[in-house]
């Protein structure tokens, strides 16, 4: 317990931690403020205004169409004839349906429709922060020799590294829950002020909650992987290097898969897995296949990446990397 207490203190004494946390808050605040400013509530006046605008546009479109039709009728025999069809009744005449007033409305924030994207933004920002803080938390300890000093006090290496990781993930879970609640609250307020909270049933909230939990999973996995990579390489930079390396390899593999004619080259991209994990399903199309059907013509084969598959993949990678970090620590000489 004393070790956990010390590690908590250490985590929050670090300037890097506070710097990243301030950065996270700033980014989130900017996104929320931007959303607030770019959306407007659909008040009856605004709807009336939009309807008037739609009607006016419809009128001017009708008038324009009339003028065109007249020119068309007058055209035969003149050089202008090439610009018009032979049968002038075939020309486009606007209908009122084509001038839906909603197009004349300023953007409005619909909680039910738009909040899932915001959960995604939140998860990505916090996952990046968790990766960095996790990597630096253990990386700079190794690099500075602080880890060695600590091991002179607490010789059980796995316990030391495990406690560090647990403390860090624990605090990030708390932080995610806290910020997540604030995030949902902020957008609920934005929806109330600058949009609508229509059809926000308990079921919708529950679905948001589940998406949020998957986001938490993503954040913790990113944190654990950053931590483990930095511990493996005994340097914060190692985690970043590994990230860049994996990114480069991914692009290479993606290109090779495309050239090699693999059915679903996108499936080799890590971010797509993260995306699938968050949105539950991503359909991938096999562009080179043709599933012919009489009425639909040529339809490509579809492979659906599900959140279960993506989640299992992430879990395996996380367990492998963390396991490797613990294994390496158990075995190696520290000097």
């Amino acid at each position: 317990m004393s070790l956990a207490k010390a590690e908590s203190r250490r985590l929050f004494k670090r300037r890097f931690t506070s710097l990243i946390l301030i950065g996270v808050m700033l980014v989130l605040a900017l996104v929320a403020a931007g959303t607030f400013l770019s959306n407007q509530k659909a008040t009856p006046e605004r709807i009336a205004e939009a309807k008037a605008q739609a009607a006016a546009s419809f009128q001017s479109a009708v008038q324009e169409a009339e003028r065109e039709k007249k020119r068309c009728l007058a055209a035969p025999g003149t050089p202008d004839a090439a610009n018009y069809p032979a049968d002038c009744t075939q020309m486009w005449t606007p209908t009122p349906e084509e001038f839906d007033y909603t197009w004349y409305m300023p953007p409005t924030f619909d909680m039910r429709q738009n909040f899932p994207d915001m959960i995604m933004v939140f998860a990505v920002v916090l996952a990046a922060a968790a990766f960095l803080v996790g990597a630096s938390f253990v990386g700079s300890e190794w690099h500075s020799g602080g880890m060695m000093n600590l091991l002179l006090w607490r010789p059980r290496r796995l316990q030391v590294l495990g406690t560090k990781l647990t403390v860090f993930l624990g605090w990030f879970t708390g932080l995610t829950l806290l910020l997540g609640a604030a995030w949902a609250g902020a957008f609920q307020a934005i929806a109330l002020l600058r949009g609508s909270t229509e059809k926000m049933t308990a079921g919708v909230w529950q679905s948001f909650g589940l998406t949020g939990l998957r986001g938490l999973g993503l954040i913790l996995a990113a944190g654990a992987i950053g931590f483990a990579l930095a511990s493996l390489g005994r340097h914060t930079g190692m985690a970043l290097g590994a990230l860049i390396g994996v990114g480069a390899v991914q692009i290479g593999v993606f290109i090779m898969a495309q050239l090699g004619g693999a059915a679903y080259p996108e499936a080799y991209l890590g971010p797509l897995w993260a995306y699938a994990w968050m949105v539950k399903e991503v359909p991938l199309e096999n562009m080179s296949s043709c599933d012919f059907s009489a009425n639909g013509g040529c339809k490509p084969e579809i492979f659906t990446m599900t959140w279960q598959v993506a989640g299992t993949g992430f879990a395996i990678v996380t367990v492998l990397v963390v396991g490797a970090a613990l294994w390496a620590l158990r075995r190696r000489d520290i000097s």
Partner: protein
Amino acid sequence: MVRRMTAVLEISGLRKTYRSRKGVRNALDGFDMVVEAGQVHGFLGPNGSGKTTTLRTLLGLIRPNDGRMAILGQEVPRRLPQVAGQVGAIVESPQFFGNFTAKDTLSLLADAGNVNRSRVPAVLDLVGLRDRAGERVKTYSLGMKQRLAVASALLKEPKLLILDEPANGLDPGGIREMRTLMRDLSASGMTVLLSSHILGEIQLICDSVTIISAGRRVTSGSVAEVLASHTSGAVRVRLEQGGDLFGAAQVLREAGAQVTLEADYMVVGNASNPALITRLLAQRGVYVSELTPIAADLEDVFLELTGTAPVEGQNRQVDESALGAGRNGWGQ
């Protein structure tokens, strides 16, 4: 009063092999050491002889290939977690996370090790860092970092204090303070194991020493014993009035002695059996009036045993140290 000797630290047959692409290096090659309770024990050896490797192994940072070690009667590394709280240690050129202050660094260690944080100001004061305790460690000078390391080792009020070159970077005042500190700690019942290259210092503060060379112990014992048994055999020989110093030197040289002539005496460098000198000279009718062993200091013993004395016109390389060199003196 009979002082019962109990070993606070025992090492036997310790072996550590570093493997790399360049080959295999035996850093420790069957090393033995015993440190008795309440002593200040000096740990000496040339560069690269395995001192730091020994101490790291003892502290569980390095896995040995073979050998047994015990601290305070507990076998390590198996029972290291149980004894770690009683062992304060600094290993070679200690480093700390640079962005924390000395006070934070120590209080975090205190928390991690279940030590009362209130000891932090006390140990910082003890090592002379009280007024700089609130500054970040990366702004410290070498000696200040070293003092901080000593403070961290003292924080848990250890029974055994292991210090790898604690005087490294200390100013003369600091070295003297360290000397007094060691004495006080030892007087309070603490056992201190001290590695250092400052042999004058070791001779002043240590009760006993172990000398290591090329990963093996070449000698150990109380400082007096080590000095006595390894006087390097040098004796000062004075002849009776009117004796032929030059002729006598010739006689001894012919018998294989290393003789240095001085104005009215000569020094026989490798006389491990001084009686032989009197016998040889008496046979020629030359009589010795003085035959005094020249008191060697620790430095002489060290250089002799480790075979690292500088030789004119040669640049000694780090791994050129000897195992038991000089032990086979002339006349044995």
